[in-house]
C-alpha cells in the first residue's frame, strides 16, 4: 500500500488538456485499485476566486481532491510568488505521501519541488515531462520566435536571439534556477524518447529519465470507411487543437495546392479542431484567411469529445499530424492507431518517433506544404499501402499498463531511497 499525491497544473474538469487528463486518469486508476491516492490541482481565474488567508479550495465532496489557487507566477523563471508556504507545508506533512508525482509545475513554480523535498525528505518525487518548458521559454515549444523554425538547441546566445528583451545572462540564470530545483526530483517520466534525448542534451542525467508511454482508455476499433465503388482512400482527418504550432496552416495550404489538379481534387480533408477561440487573433485571422483561399475539399467540423472519436474516425481513412514543433508523444497518433488509421506526420520529434515511415504511416518534410501535398496524393492513390500500414498499427498502451509501469517505478524509487537511508544510517 502506497500513499500517492498527484500534483497537476490544472484539473481536467476546468482545463481538459492532455497532461491534466493523463494525470487525472492515473489518479482515478490508482484510487479504484484501492491505493490511498490524492489529487491536488492548481486553479486560478476565471474558474475560482481564492478564500482569504488560504490558497486551498475544496473540490466538491471529493475527500481526496484539492484545488490550490495560484496565479501570476514569474513565467520566465517559472518561479512562484507565494510569500508564505506554511499551509502547503502543513498539507504535505499531514497527508505524508510516499510518492509525490508532479504532472507539471507550470503555473505553480519550481519552488514546489523544494518545499516537497523539505517536508517529505524520504518521499519519491516523480516529474512527468510534457513539453520543453524547462528548456525553452517559448511556451516550451522549441520553435524559434523569429522564423518559426524548430530550435537546434538550447544556449544562452540562441535563446537571447528569440527573446532579445532577456540577456544571455538571464537565460543562464533561468537554466540554473530550474536545474537547481530539479535536483529534488528522483525520476523524470517521459512518454517520448525524443523528448528524453532533448533533456539529456540539456543536462539531465540519462539515469534520471524513465520512459513510460501515455496510457489510454482503449476504445473499440472503428470499422474502416465503407467505400463507394469508384472512390479511393482519400479522406484525411485533422484532429486536435488549432494553434500556430500544430501545423494546420501547412495542411490547408497543401489542400490549396492539391485543388489545382484533377486528381488532387478527389482528396477530402475533415478538420475537427478545438480551442481556436483562445488563440492569438493573428492566428485566428490567418486560419480564416487560409480556409477562405483554399478551394479544395475542406470540411470544418466542431470540436469533439473523446467518446465521439470512433464515430468521426468512421469517415476518415488517414489521420494527419502536421505539427511544426517537435511534439512529445502526440495523443492523436495513439488515437489513430487505436482505430487502425495510418498516420501522415511531420518528420520531426515525437511524431517521427511514434510514426514509422512506410510502416505505420508516412512522413513528410515538416513545414512543407508541397511535400505534404505530394504525400497526400501518394497516399490517396495507394490502396494497398493503406491496407499494409493499417495492418501494422501497433497496439495502444492502456491505462492499466501505464499504472503497472508507474507502480513499478514508484516501488523501485522508494526501494532505492530506503537503501540510501539505510546505507547512510548503517
Amino acid at each position, binding site marked *: 500500500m502506497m500513499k500517492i499525491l498527484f500534483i497537476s497544473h490544472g484539473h481536467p474538469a476546468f482545463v481538459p488538456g492532455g497532461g491534466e487528463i493523463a494525470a487525472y486518469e492515473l489518479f482515478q486508476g490508482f484510487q479504484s485499485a484501492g491505493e490511498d491516492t490524492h489529487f491536488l490541482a492548481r486553479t486560478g481565474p476565471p474558474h475560482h476566486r481564492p478564500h482569504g488567508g488560504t490558497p486551498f479550495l475544496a473540490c466538491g465532496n471529493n475527500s481526496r481532491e484539492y484545488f490550490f489557487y495560484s496565479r501570476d507566477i514569474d513565467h520566465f523563471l517559472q518561479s512562484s510568488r507565494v510569500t508564505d508556504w506554511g499551509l502547503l507545508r502543513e498539507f504535505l506533512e499531514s497527508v505524508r505521501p510516499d510518492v509525490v508525482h508532479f504532472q507539471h509545475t507550470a503555473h505553480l513554480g519550481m519552488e514546489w519541488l523544494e518545499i516537497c523535498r523539505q517536508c517529505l525528505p524520504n518521499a519519491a518525487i516523480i516529474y512527468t515531462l510534457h513539453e520543453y518548458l524547462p528548456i525553452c521559454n517559448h511556451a516550451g515549444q522549441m520553435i524559434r520566435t523569429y522564423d518559426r523554425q524548430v530550435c537546434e538547441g538550447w544556449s544562452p546566445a540562441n535563446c537571447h536571439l528569440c527573446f532579445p528583451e532577456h540577456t544571455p545572462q538571464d*537565460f*543562464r540564470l533561468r537554466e540554473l534556477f530550474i536545474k537547481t530545483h530539479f535536483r529534488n526530483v528522483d525520476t523524470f517520466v517521459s512518454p517520448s524518447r525524443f523528448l528524453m534525448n532533448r533533456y539529456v542534451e540539456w543536462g539531465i542525467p540519462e539515469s534520471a529519465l524513465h520512459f513510460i508511454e501515455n496510457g489510454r482508455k482503449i476504445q473499440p476499433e472503428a470499422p474502416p470507411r465503407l467505400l463507394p465503388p469508384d472512390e479511393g482512400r482519400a479522406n484525411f482527418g485533422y484532429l486536435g487543437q488549432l494553434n500556430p504550432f500544430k501545423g494546420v496552416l501547412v495542411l490547408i495550404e497543401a489542400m490549396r495546392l492539391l485543388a489545382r489538379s484533377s486528381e488532387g481534387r478527389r482528396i477530402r480533408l475533415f478538420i475537427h479542431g478545438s480551442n481556436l477561440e483562445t488563440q492569438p487573433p493573428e492566428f485566428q485571422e490567418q486560419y480564416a484567411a487560409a480556409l477562405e483561399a483554399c478551394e479544395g475539399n475542406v470540411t470544418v467540423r466542431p470540436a469533439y469529445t473523446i467518446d465521439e472519436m470512433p464515430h468521426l474516425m468512421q469517415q476518415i481513412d488517414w489521420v494527419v499530424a502536421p505539427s511544426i514543433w517537435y511534439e512529445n508523444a502526440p495523443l492523436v497518433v495513439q488515437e489513430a492507431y487505436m482505430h487502425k488509421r495510418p498516420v501522415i506526420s511531420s518528420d520531426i520529434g515525437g511524431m517521427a518517433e511514434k510514426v514509422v515511415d512506410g510502416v505505420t504511416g508516412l512522413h513528410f518534410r515538416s513545414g512543407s506544404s508541397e511535400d505534404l501535398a505530394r504525400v497526400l496524393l501518394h497516399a490517396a492513390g495507394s490502396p494497398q499501402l493503406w491496407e499494409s500500414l493499417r495492418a501494422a498499427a501497433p497496439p495502444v498502451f492502456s491505462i492499466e499498463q501505464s499504472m503497472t509501469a508507474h507502480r513499478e517505478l514508484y516501488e523501485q524509487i522508494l526501494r532505492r531511497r530506503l537503501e540510501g537511508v539505510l546505507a547512510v544510517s548503517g
Partner: protein
Amino acid sequence: MERLYVFEGWTNIGAAAQIHGISVNRQQCPGLPIAPFRYERGDLKDIENGEGLVLIVKAVPEWSGSEPEVLLQTGEGEFRWPWSCEPAMHENIQPRLRAWCEWNPDANRRLYQHLFEAVASAEQLKADVLFEANRMLWWKSVTRIEGCLDSCCWVASRVLLLRWWSPVPLSRIRQAVITGNNDTIPLSLHTTIDIRSDIPDPSWGHVGIASADQSRLAALHEPVLLFLLDDGSVSAPAGNAIRPRGTLDAAHFRHWHTEAKRELLEAIFRLEKASQDTPAGSDMASLPVPAESAVEVLDEACPNHLSRFDGALQMVLDHFQVVRSDLVFLAGWLFDPKNSVASLALRGVDGRSIEIDPLLIRIPRPDVTENVAVPHGIHSSERYGFLAAVPTEYGYWDRGARLAARLRSGESYEIGRNRTTWDALETRRALLACMPEQPYFDQRLMKLMQRALSDCRDDASRRAFARVIEYGETPRRPATSIIVTLHRRIDFLRHQMAHFVGDTTLAGSEFVYVLDSPEMEREFAALAMQVFDTYRVPFRGVFLRKNSGFGPANNIGAGLAHGRNLLFMNSDVFPCRPGWLPAMTAAQRSVPHVGLVGGKLLYEDGSLQHAGMYFSRSSNPDGLWWNWHYYKGLPSVFEPANQARAVPAITGALVLIDRALFEDLGGWDESYLEGDFEDSDLSIRLYQRGLCSWYQPSVELWHLERQSQAPTFENAWRRNATYYNCWVQTERWSGVIEEIMRRVHGSEEAEHQGRGAASTHL
C-alpha cells in the same frame, strides 16, 4: 464644525425683485440668513437685467454629501438657479474671489467688504467657528479688505516669502503682522514691487521676504496677514494663504527679470545668514526643502553661459560643486581667442570674491573646439576647458557661485551656477564626469582630482550602516561567513539561495547579504522573507542608509560577520556545482603562505571570466598599471587556465581570506571609487606581507556579468572612475607592482627553460 457656504453666479431676475429666501434640495430653508450681494459684470452686459449675485449662507448639516440645488424665492415665484450650484466653502473661496475680480475689480473690493460683514453677522448667530476669537478681533478692526495674498512659503529655514497685491502703497504701511488665535508676529518686510498684468493696477503687486520663526508661526491657528497703516486703519489682503507649507510658485517667477530674481535670491541669503543664531556651517545641509526650491526657481537669475562680441568671447560654467565647507570645485570652458579676459574671479552670493587664475588647470575640450572654435575659423590645439579646486573660507558657496570675468577693457561679466549637492556619491560622480577623456593625461590634474575626490568621500562604511535583520537563526560561530553585496538586482538573492540550499557543504556557514540600494529597502525586506520561507537557509540582511559601493558595503558586511574565514562573493556569481567552498578552504589550508584564494569564474556561455589577474603597464604617457585577467574569453578547459597557482591578484567577485588577516590589513581600501581595484590593492598589500594570492581552478562558478555598455556621456563618470582608480593604484603601488611582475616573468621563464618547478610563492 459648521461652515459658511458661498454661492456665486448671475441672475436676470432684476434688481427690483426681492430675494426672500432660498431652498436647497427642494427644502425651504426659512431661517437661513441670506446676504445677497449684487454686482455688475462686464460679461453680462448683453443680458437684460443680468447681474452677478453672491449669496452667503450657513451650511445645514443635511447638505453634506449632496449637491444642493438652489431655488431663489422672489415675489414673482421660484427660480431655479442653474449656474454654479456647487457650494464654495471657505477652503476654496480664495481662487473664486480671484476669478470674480477679473470681471469687476471694483465690485470685488466691495464684495470683500460684504463678505467681511457677512462673516461678522455669522459670528453673532454663533453660526460659524471659522474664525477664532483673536482673529475676529483683528478682522473687526480691519478697515478695508483690499487685494489678495497669493502665496506664502518658506524659502529658507527662517525666511518667509509672501506674494500679494494691494492698492495700499508700501509707503503707507507702518507695520505688517501675521496674527492668529493666540499670537501676533510682527514682520520686518523687505519688499519688492512685482509688476503683474493679472491685477487691476499692474503696480499693486508685491513680493516681500521676512525672517520669522517656523515653530512660532506653525503654532498659529488660521493666521492672517494684516497691514497697520499710517492713519491708524488696518488693511488686509483677502485670501487665506498663510499656510507656509507650500512651495514657491515657480511659474510666477518665470516672468521676472533675471536681475530682480538675483537680487531677491541674494536678499534671501543675506536675511537667512543674518537670522542664523547657530554658528556658521553647523547645519548647512539641514535647510528645509523649500530653500532648495527657491534656488532652483531663481536659478535663471544668473545664466551659466556668456557670449559677447559676436561669440568671440564665450564662457561657460558647466559645473560648480562644494566639495567640503572650505573647498569648491568648478569646471567649464573659456573661448577667448582675442585674449580679452584679464582675470577670472569666483564670487559667492554673499559678495566675497577669490582670484582663481593661478588655480585653473586647462584641459582639452574637443566639443568646444568642434562647435565653437572651428566655426570661428580657429583650428588650434588650444585647451579651452578648465577645472579648479578652490580653497575657500566658509561662505554661502552651497548656494551657488558666480564666475566673474574682468576684461582688459575694464568691462566685467558674470556667469553662475546655483545648484550643488551635498550627497557624497553624487558629488563624486559629478566630479568624475568633468575629467577629460583619456588618453589625455596631466599629473597635476590627477592630483587635483584626488584632492577633490578624497575630500568628498564621507567615511561611507562608518556612516552608512543602518540595521541588521536576521532571517532564521544564523550560526554564531561559523567557520566561514559568505558576504554578498546586493546592488539593484536584489533578485539574485533568490537565485543564490536556490543554489546554496542544495549544497550540504555550505551548512553551518553564515550568509551576510548587504543591501547597497537603500531605495529598495521595502522590496528587499519582502523578498528576503519570501526567500527565507521558501529555502529556509538562514541569513542576515544588512540594510544601509545610503548607497556605498563595493569596498564600504563589503567592509560593513565583514564587520558584522562571525566567521573565522570571510568569503566575499558578487551577487551575480552562482556555483556550477556544490562543493566549491570546501575546495577553497582546502587550498587555504594546504598552500603555504596563502593570503587569498580565488576560483575559476565563467561567463554565461562558458568562456573564462576569471582565472587570476596580473598587472600590465600602459604604453600611454601616463604609464598606468592596469589589471588584466588571464585567458579571459577562452574556453574554460583551456589548459593553462586549469593549473592551480599563485597569481599576482585575485578578483573580488569571489575571494576567500582569513578574517584576522583581513582585519589586520584594514579591510577593503575605500579610497577606490565605485567598486574597482580594491581587489588588486588587497592582493598587493598581502604580497607585501609575503603572502600569495592563490588561483584554484577546480573551484568553478558562473559570473553572469552584464556586458559593459558603450561609453556615453551619462556614464563618462564610470569610465573616468576606472581611470582614476588605476591612477591611484599606480601612484600607490607602482614599485611593488613592478617587483611582482618581474617575479612572474622570471618564474615563467624558469618554467619555460625547464629549470624545475616554478616557485609558488611570488
